[in-house]
């Protein structure tokens, strides 16, 4: 194998990660070695991987057969533009997260650092290999490695019962998804018994089996991506992990599910039905709204971000659904637009979500507190984290000129083109769908103001927050890298779109590249129709701000006086009078009441120790999961009737079985 080829390089990075993990496990308690050498080395390797992905976007697809695995079942690898794009996402995000992790992991927090280093790097390597796999066997092996290594990372603080529970739920749903994917590959090989992706591409499926494959792909990859109703593990598992791992899981691991879904729907499965797209889009909309509404009522900062990941996955699925529908009607340019929006949003989400998860990690280390109700005012004590997190906050809230807005803009543009579809009923769907997207995007702004305002602004809600310290140099580098990514992706959309074109063109048969006019403006269809220039946008705002500042100083003065805040006539104002996380969630709880299952405990006027409590739960948990669990319990109880625990009974079973078998043989 040529070491210089992109595929060889990507494979080398994966092996290097595995090696780093092995070194780490050799010295499980040598923290300086692990954090100062192994993690930064892993970050460098991630940069190499990002570069590899970038070169693979423009290069021709490259395939290899690795002579490892079962006899007669070697592992096929292939690096094409789609893999390259997701490798770029993985590498670029991991570079920031690993550098941050170099300064993050401490002694005495659950699992030994060396062991964490092993799981972490195995996790990274398996994600890279999932994106490279070119046959069902390799894909499943790497997919399962990814699930298991992340399970161990989630349960790294395994002494806490709720973390063990979160880990169990995670691994359970991951395996339900994995079974579905296994069945999917069984359908895709279409009776040829050849499980390489190359053979699957060649199979022509009858409509029924195509639909079965679609349903299995949606369930299997949806379980990993956290699509409603298979999302319940996500808000438990992501916050349970250490922050760099939460960042990786939200930013990258969910995207492996997106990658798998795209691979199956746009590459392996030859046929398309328009209504599949409608199903995906509807599920995406439900997921987006569900995620953001639940995100708004959380009072734990990491859970809030985990729900917001569900919302963002919803947006990505909406884009993919639109692309499927457009493609089924052979409207290639529009399919390309919708798919570009989905890919762009995947990349954006990777950057801003990891940035925010990492900043919650810094807050957690500085304060030992995850509850929003006990934070506040950290902008004074942790300026680095606070200002970098502000970039992430504005980006995730979908505000121009940052990156989150750009992908939502593309998505809305795709919606506005839907009336061109030949299906009138589908056209009727547009207003409802566009309205739901707009509502979810606006709610995201509300959620992020809540998150940022309560954690970083205001007065500290606890005395000891005054002792909070800013993050260290490694963490600063990691956060700065990710924040820079958010800004760059927002300001250079023309470049990003021309890059994703290499991915979109083979999948949909058209691209947007020629349509974006110049580097300054983005005009995906035609400049008369819609154009946007984030760089110019930012430049004008900065110019106006500078102008206003200079004019005020020139014509008036720059004097300033500090004093107490105005107390509206009340003598005593304290930090407890600020709005809490629950207070901020109240309007959403009220407006979207049907979404929640709420238990309220209200005090009476006569109570000597009044207590106010509200527990917000997920309906789906009670409607779907608990009945399913009860059913499983009942079935297993019935089966356990056979299990008497007495040797004579078991001997009788053996005897009975023997008799039955003899009966069959007789025939």
């Amino acid at each position, binding site marked *: 194998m040529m070491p210089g080829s992109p595929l060889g390089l990507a494979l080398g990075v994966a092996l290097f990660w595995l090696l780093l993990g092995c070194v780490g496990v050799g010295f499980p308690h040598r923290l300086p070695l692990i954090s100062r050498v192994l993690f930064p080395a892993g970050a460098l390797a991630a940069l190499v991987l990002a570069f590899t992905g970038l070169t693979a976007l423009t290069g021709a697809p490259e395939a290899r057969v690795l002579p490892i695995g079962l006899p007669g079942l070697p592992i096929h690898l292939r690096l094409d533009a789609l893999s390259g794009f997701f490798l770029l996402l993985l590498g670029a995000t991991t570079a920031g997260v690993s550098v941050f992790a170099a300064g993050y992991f401490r002694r005495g927090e659950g699992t030994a650092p060396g062991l964490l280093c092993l799981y972490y790097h195995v996790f990274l390597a398996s994600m890279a290999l999932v994106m490279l796999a070119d046959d069902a066997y390799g894909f499943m092996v790497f997919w399962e490695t990814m699930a298991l290594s992340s399970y161990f990372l989630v349960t790294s603080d395994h002494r806490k019962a709720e973390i063990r529970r979160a880990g169990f739920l995670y691994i359970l749903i991951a395996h339900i998804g994995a079974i579905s994917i296994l069945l999917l590959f069984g359908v895709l090989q279409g009776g040829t018994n050849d499980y390489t992706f190359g053979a699957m591409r060649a199979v022509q499926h009858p409509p029924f089996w195509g639909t079965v494959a679609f349903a299995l792909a949606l369930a299997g990859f949806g379980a990993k991506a956290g699509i409603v109703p298979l999302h319940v593990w996500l808000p438990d598992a992501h916050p349970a992990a250490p922050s760099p791992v939460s960042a990786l899981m939200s930013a990258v691991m969910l995207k492996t599910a997106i990658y798998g879904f795209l691979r199956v729907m746009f590459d392996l499965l030859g046929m398309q039905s328009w209504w599949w797209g409608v199903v995906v889009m509807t599920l995406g909309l439900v997921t987006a709204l569900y995620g953001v509404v639940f995100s708004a009522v959380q009072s734990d900062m990491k859970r809030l971000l985990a729900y917001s990941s569900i919302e963002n996955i919803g947006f990505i699925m909406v884009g993919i659904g639109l692309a499927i529908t457009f493609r089924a009607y052979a409207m290639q340019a529009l399919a390309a637009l919708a798919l570009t929006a989905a890919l762009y949003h995947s990349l954006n989400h990777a950057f801003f979500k990891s940035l925010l998860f990492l900043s919650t990690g810094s807050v957690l280390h500085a304060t030992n507190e995850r509850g929003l109700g006990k934070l506040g005012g950290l902008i004074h004590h942790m300026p680095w984290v606070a200002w970098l997190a502000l970039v992430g906050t504005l980006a995730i809230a*979908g505000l121009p000129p940052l990156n989150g807005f750009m992908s939502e803009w593309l998505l809305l543009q795709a919606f506005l083109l839907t009336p061109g579809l030949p299906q009138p009923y589908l056209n009727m769907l547009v207003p409802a769908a566009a309205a739901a997207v707009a*509502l979810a995007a606006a709610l995201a*702004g509300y959620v992020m*103001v809540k998150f940022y305002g309560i954690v970083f602004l205001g007065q500290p809600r606890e005395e000891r927050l005054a002792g909070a310290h800013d993050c260290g140099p490694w963490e600063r580098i990691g956060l700065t890298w990710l924040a820079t990514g958010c800004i760059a992706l927002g300001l250079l959309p023309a470049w990003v779109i021309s890059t994703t074109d290499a991915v979109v063109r083979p999948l949909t048969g058209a691209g947007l590249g020629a349509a974006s006019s110049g580097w300054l403006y983005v005009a995906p269809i035609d400049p*008369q129709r819609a154009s946007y*220039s984030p760089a110019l946008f930012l430049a004008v*705002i900065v110019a106006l701000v500078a102008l206003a500042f200079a004019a005020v100083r020139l014509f008036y003065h720059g004097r300033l006086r*500090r*004093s107490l805040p105005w107390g509206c006539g009340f003598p005593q104002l304290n930090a407890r009078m600020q709005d809490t996380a629950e207070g901020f969630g109240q309007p959403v709880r009220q407006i979207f009441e049907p979404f929640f299952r709420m238990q309220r405990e209200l005090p009476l006027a006569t109570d000597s120790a009044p207590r106010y409590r509200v527990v917000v739960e997920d309906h789906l948990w009670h409607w779907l999961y608990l009945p399913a669990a009860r059913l499983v319990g009942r079935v297993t109880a019935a089966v356990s009737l056979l299990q008497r625990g007495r040797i004579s009974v078991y001997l009788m079973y053996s005897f009975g079985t023997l008799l039955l078998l003899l009966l069959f043989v007789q025939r």
Partner: protein
Amino acid sequence: MNTTLSGAVAQATEFALAVALAPLLTGWVNQCRAWLQNRTGPGPLQPYRMLVKLFRKEPVLAHNASALFRMTPYILFGCTGLAAAIVPTLGTGLPFNAAADAIALVGLLALARVFISLAAMDVGTAFGTLGARREMMVGFLAEPALLMVLFTASLISQSTSLSTMVQTLSRMEFVIYPSLAFAGVAFTMVSLAENARIPIDNPATHLELTMIHEAMVLEYSGRHLALIEWAASLKLFVYSCMGIALFLPLGIPQAGDWTGIVLALPALALKLAAGGAALALIETLSAKLRIFRAPEFLGAAFLLAVLAMLIHLLLEH
């Protein structure tokens, strides 16, 4: 080169006029309201006197106000200033029109809202955070409705570029578009909410418990408050111009058509004066809603806007 230059001049003129005249519009609305309420009123120039007074005063900052708090008034001014430059008031096809379309305009207003809300939470007083929460609530209800209104117009004109939208709408033969009627009602409701007007908010209130916008800016004083007030006037101006551009676009000329621009100026002034008087009338005739009723009001606007889109697709497509 010549077209770029004339475009830049037109753009600069439009921007300067917006910034200079926005307080006049606020003053005019206040004066109309005073007349309707049988008061003499301070005259339409009062906002200018207010601004000068505030700029001269020394701002008083809370001890724990961060840099974000001090930056926000300038950012707010910059954002609304850009919004004023984007909306075609005196001409279409101006240079900034290509930099941002209708969706970006909504995003720009959201950016301003997020910054003022964050700043309101910065000092950590009870009313500041309360105002921020309410403002964001009104925001997340009003923003999708506004987007839907703009989408209706953009489905008619096959474009989200404000410039193209206005050109198409102003060139349409004079027939009644039912979708635009629905969108117009929704837009009016949204603009009332977004500009902190009765029935959602009362700009003249002195009772903190009922405030939204005013609660957020309680901690601001001096030049900071002046900039915020100016930005609020600009926002009202921008919304009025947006309404004119979408629903009364007659008389908005192409860029470079200088005679058209000269003619457009009195037309714009007339439309704004009528719009301001109508706003004062609405404010006088209605009472402020309880904050819990605001979601119903804005939900109705949202529904109307979605209906407008549906009607367009059903009847006019």
